[in-house]
């Protein structure tokens, strides 16, 4: 177990964490502003990845593919908000869960019908492929490093958007008192559509970026969705800062746990048994982390309300 491996795995964990943040930020915004639990957020991630793979296949341009992912997911998000989600704001969580579960069924099977069950592949662009040498002689894939940078930049942009712009003020006001800002003349319906489309675009971007290192297939969104739920439960629902901290914690726990827990187990078990016990523990590690946070703070690290 060398230091190089440790640094590499920490970078992998960060990369996974910032991608989770893109998912979790949208979820937590939508919950914070509209009070809506959106299970179909994973479908928007999938739509982003499929748009990117289809456009990259047709044009060969990765930049166009990313634009398509952002636009495709945002348009799908806005449409879904106007047609279905809008009717759910006044309803209880049970109706929201079921309606968005129904949307998952429709989106997943619809995509399977359009693209088939075989995974598509999205290639890493040539300019970003291959390893770079970091200070200290560590070789690390340039693309993954770019993902970390993009994720952190989006996080910064989102903070500025929320804290410095007019739309950000409206979003924060909407979280606190939606009747009051409606009374002040803000078109609340339009604001909701914009927030939903923004969250969808972030999910679509994450889908496209991750699609280039994994395969693009139906059902790719749901495992990420559930991890994003864990992230916002840990961070506190409605808090962007919580989403970032939670995402990095979950990303690091997931990646480092998978590598190091089997090794730790080998210290006091037979190697074969240790590997399987370690792997089981590693797949459970983030949920144990979540349980621990909940015992200490039932509303998450940065959450104010239940």
């Amino acid at each position: 177990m060398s230091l190089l491996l440790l640094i590499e795995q920490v970078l992998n964990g960060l990369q996974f964490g910032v991608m989770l943040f893109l998912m979790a930020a949208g979820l937590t915004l939508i919950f914070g502003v509209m009070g809506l639990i959106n299970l179909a957020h994973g479908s928007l991630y999938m739509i982003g990845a499929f748009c990117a793979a289809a456009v990259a296949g047709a044009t060969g341009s990765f930049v166009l593919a990313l634009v398509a992912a952002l636009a495709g997911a945002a348009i799908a998000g806005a449409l879904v908000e106007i047609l279905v989600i809008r009717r759910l704001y006044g309803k209880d969580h049970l109706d929201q869960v079921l309606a968005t579960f129904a949307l998952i069924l429709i989106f997943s099977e619809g995509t399977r019908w359009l693209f088939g069950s075989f995974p598509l592949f999205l290639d890493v662009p040539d300019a970003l492929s291959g390893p770079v040498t970091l200070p200290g002689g560590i070789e690390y894939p340039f693309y993954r490093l770019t993902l970390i940078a993009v994720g952190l930049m989006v996080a910064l942009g989102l903070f500025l958007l929320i804290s410095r712009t007019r739309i950000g003020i409206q979003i924060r006001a909407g979280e606190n008192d939606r009747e009051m800002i409606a009374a002040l003349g803000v078109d609340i319906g339009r604001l909701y559509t914009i927030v939903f489309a923004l969250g969808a675009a972030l999910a679509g971007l994450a889908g496209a970026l991750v699609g280039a290192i994994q395969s693009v297939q139906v059902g790719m969104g749901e495992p990420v969705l559930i991890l994003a739920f864990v992230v916002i439960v840990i961070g506190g629902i409605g808090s962007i800062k919580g989403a970032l901290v939670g995402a990095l914690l979950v990303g690091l726990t997931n990646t480092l746990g998978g590598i190091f827990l089997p090794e730790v187990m080998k210290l006091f078990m037979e190697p074969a048994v240790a590997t399987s016990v370690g792997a089981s523990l590693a797949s459970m590690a983030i949920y144990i982390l979540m349980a621990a946070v909940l015992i200490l703070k039932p509303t998450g690290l940065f959450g104010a309300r239940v």
Partner: protein
Amino acid sequence: MTRENGLNMLIVAGLVLVPLWAFFADEPFTITLATRAVILAMAAVGLNIALGLGGLISLGHAVFFGLGGYAMGILAYHAQTYTPFVEWPFVIEGTKSMPIIWLVAVVMSSLAAFVIGLLSLRTSGAYFIMITLAFGQMFFFFSISWSAYGGEDGVSIYLRNGFPGLNTLAPIQFYGLCFGLLMLVLLFASLLARSPFGLALNAARQSEQRVQAVGMMPFRLRLAAFVISGAITGLAGALFADLNRFVSPAMFSWQMSGEIMILVILGGVGRLYGPVVGAIVYVMLEHVLGDLSDYWHIYLGVLLLLVVLFVKGGIIGAVSGRRTAHG
């Protein structure tokens, strides 16, 4: 007699008559479909105690369904390979006897429900939904990585487990067993809803403060409801695995949790026979739409969306004309 009671009696009559007809008409597949519906109904009756009575939106009931399934899979696996399940500190053999398997399934799922409930019920609302979902994933990933029992491939059983005095390999006899259990569970659920415990639980769902004010602890009421609910779903899981003679991590998957919840909502939340109607309709849809198209989940999704948006109180609510379950 209200229209809802009449409808309920009609459903029970159907569950008796259709499989009997199928038996004499030599249509074993229909009996298998009916068995599937009855078992799924039982799982949903379990969820309905937490959801309808307690107002606990659990998106993790696949945990208990899967635990029941694996209780059957693991015990039967050791019985068919003649290997002991535990060797130390004392020997525990596998078994092919349904009553013992059911007991283990109920005990294991109650224990899991107790621990998950203890942690999850500290929160409420959206947090509770997401946490139960996350616990479901935890069990799902654990079952995938547990290579001793097939990992991702699951465990297959050669012969269905036995019940004293019955030939469970005959579809109609296994159906009768499952149907009888469902009726017992429904009886239990209806007694529970009318018991002081059920009334207090119902009150805690409607107004937490008032229940506290008269000196009861909503947390304990909900935890007890969650454990009972998990135990029933666990029993259904053991039967489901026995029906398929197969158990795999799919029983732990979050889609499974979603499906059990769909059954409750389709039929009508908080109604005694809601889950039964939901399960019958679901299995029929699965069969009819599945023949029609490989992509039948699209139609299911659209139907579900329409029910959530436009039909208050599910199918029973629409048919009986009473929009709310708790009148």
